[in-house]
């Protein structure tokens, strides 16, 4: 081998990563740690066992849905319908248990099934009709909310099934609230599926360069539809964790959920343009949002000021972290 080809081959790797790069790469985690330290000093209640459990419970919805949304966004798509579908899934499980059989599994399946159906529709319309998912899911946001409101003429539906409450709401496991257990399970599965499975590779490929992925034999349409279905199923699960503690479903729940979830996902380092991101980062992003909500209330900050602070923190956290 001559000098020339050798030199071509032995290029320095991306020029010795500097300390600044490191901070940028892991900024979500640093920001999360900084928030925790700050609130620990600012409020004596913050680090209590009870409050930590609360944070876990309160972030479960966003964390779980964000795992699905990560798949969707890495695919270079978006899902704005999660909030409305969340409400509809809850209604489905409550209604099934009230009017069909009061069996927890059936209720659970109903919620997940509704989520899956809407996820499938979102994906199908996106890929088959070539409508940008922003609009498809904006439309579905209206459709799902309308159905949820219509189905009981806007009235809430009660649930009375102790097993259901145990599994999705009130029990603890290894000292952790069940919602936290569910979150951990979903995050773990999400990590394996996104980062270790063939499907995960295809998600990255589809989001990173759809045409190339197609040329290489990746069924990008199936990948996209599957990601929406995953999100739908997780929205269904998240709705169970809500109805499990509320003992009722309401048709007007979850409005604005999509913004919290998308903020968590992007805060967690997923590129809105697709092809890039990690599940653990997304969990960190969700925790940042959850901890801000919790800590600012504990500190007694008024809700207008809370909105200002949260807005600034979101911008600051992303601007200091790695680009995109």
């Amino acid at each position, binding site marked *: 081998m001559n000098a020339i080809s050798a030199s071509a081959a032995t290029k320095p790797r991306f020029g010795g990563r500097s300390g600044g790069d490191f901070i940028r790469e892991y900024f979500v985690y640093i920001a999360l740690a900084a928030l925790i330290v700050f609130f620990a000093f600012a409020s004596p209640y913050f680090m209590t066992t009870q409050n930590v459990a609360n944070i876990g419970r309160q972030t479960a919805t966003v964390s779980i849905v964000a795992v699905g949304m990560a798949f969707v966004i890495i695919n270079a798509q978006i899902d704005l319908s999660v909030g409305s579908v969340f409400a509809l899934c809850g209604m489905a499980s409550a209604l099934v248990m009230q009017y069909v059989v009061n069996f927890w599994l059936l209720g659970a399946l109903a919620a997940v099934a509704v989520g899956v159906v809407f996820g499938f529709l979102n994906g199908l319309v996106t890929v088959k009709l070539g409508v940008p998912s922003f609009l498809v899911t904006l439309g579905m946001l209206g459709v799902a909310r309308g159905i949820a409101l219509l189905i009981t003429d806007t009235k809430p539906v009660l649930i009375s099934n102790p097993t259901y409450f145990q599994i999705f709401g009130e029990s603890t496991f290894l000292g952790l609230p069940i919602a936290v257990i569910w979150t951990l399970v979903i995050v773990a599965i999400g990590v394996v599926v996104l980062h270790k499975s063939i499907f995960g590779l295809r998600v*990255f*490929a589809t989001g990173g*360069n759809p045409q*190339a992925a197609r*040329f290489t*034999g990746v069924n990008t349409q199936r990948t996209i539809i599957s990601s929406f279905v995953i999100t739908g199923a997780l929205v269904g699960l998240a709705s169970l964790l809500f109805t499990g503690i509320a003992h009722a479903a309401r048709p007007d729940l979850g409005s604005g959920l999509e913004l919290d979830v998308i903020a968590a996902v992007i805060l967690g380092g997923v590129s809105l343009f697709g092809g890039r991101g990690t599940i653990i980062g997304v969990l960190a992003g969700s925790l940042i949002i959850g901890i801000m909500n919790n800590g600012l209330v504990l500190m007694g900050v008024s809700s207008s000021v809370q909105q200002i602070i949260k807005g600034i923190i979101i911008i600051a956290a992303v601007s200091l972290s790695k680009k995109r």
Partner: protein
Amino acid sequence: MSAPNAQSGSDSEETGTLLQATGLSKLFSGIYALKDVDFDLKAGEVHALLGPNGAGKSTLIKILDGVQPQDEGSVEVDGRPRTSGDIATVFQELSLIPALTVAQNIFLGNEIHNALGLVRTGEMNRIVKVLTDRLGLNIRPEEPVENLSVASRQLVEIAKAIHRNARVLVLDEPTSTLTKADQLLLFKSIRDIQKAGVGIIYVTHRLTEVFELADRVTVIRDGRKVLTAQVSDMEMKSLVSVITGTKTDEVGPSAQDFDRYVPADEAQLTDGPRLQVSMLSGDRFSNISLTVAPGQIVGIAGLIGTGRTELLETIAGVRRSSAGDIRLDGKSVSFKSTAQAVSAGVALVPEDRHQSGVILQHSILRNLALAHSKALRRGPLMDDGAARTLVRGLIDTLQIKAVSMGSPVQSLSGGNQQKVVFAKWMQPGVRVLLLDEPTQGVDVGARQEIYKVIHRFAEEGAAVLVVSSDFVELQELCDEIYFMTSTTMSEPEPVTAETTDQYIYSALNERVIKSHERD
């Protein structure tokens, strides 16, 4: 990796046909990009596919591969309709996934996995390591592709195609961004797999490669096949004339015609240097000095990765320099943005035209109107009529082949896209023209057109600085050549009849070894 079970000796020479395409036609918005083309490939053969820009080569390849459906005709491999695994293609536009690693890219679509669908990364990395070692590439399997240079990505693409064990390997202008050394590496790999019975279709605009590598050659023009012949029966001149569709004696100017060396110091005596770079350092290069006089065309020969692109980009205000000085007509400049550089008359024809050269989905009109907006503006508004006139003129001058000026640039063939990039700078006030691989993917005919354009810039007093991995091009185009490594720049050497591409290659090699020894 083992070679596919090529049809062995039992087949005679005549029945060794591996791939047979018959009567292929393809229409784009009512126009034939391909018309009734037959094409065949024998096992173990390298079949060069040639033709001017927009002839339909990439279209033919896409149809053979199956990523684009044909309107008429059939493609058979081994006498059966083609199936998906038969053909592996390295497309003209690279098709790797930036965030995935080299190994993940190579295995994309047929990953090694366990029963649960989980990927066995270690196994994949190991196999890719064996493959890259065999091909002589020093690329880590676990490196994300986005960290690699353009050339390395090209090599990964080729490794990916080879890895697929396909019967047919298609390479669409693989060398357009490669330097000589990488090209040799590539040729060696091609000969290896050729021996294993794989048929290779090789698209290129560098005709010397055809004679080095190919067994047969097919030329298409305007979507029709005009020639299939044994390479041994052809010579350069006749091949050029078939491609351009001219008679042999009309064939474009040779290198000697452009041999019009303007000695630097002589020019400086009259006007002073137009562009003077002294001890400039920046991203991936340092202590670079060079001088270009008005009307002079100066080339830089260097290795891939020495930072030639970065040097040009620094001069053009895309990047900041860390030390040193850039002078324009004697005045020190430091552009904060390309906008400033452009308004000072410094224009760059970038290496990656899809990323930086054109807005693919916009029309030719819109792309050119943007670049020429200075001349077309009436107050804050744009003169639509003037824009159309101007663009029509540019299309004619550069003979850009397009349906209309409203056609999106992405519907043009690669070479015609490159002409659009040149057309952007065909405007008064361009004092320095920086060219990074200016004829990448441009056909022989058009290449001569572009050389003429470059000469016209020079004649009108622009200083032209050319970076090219095609040493023949440097030789044909330039008055002087610098040899660049990432830390050194030679004194300029005049280009004479003795300055062959072989000479440039060895001169450069010498310097690289020297600079390594110094380290």
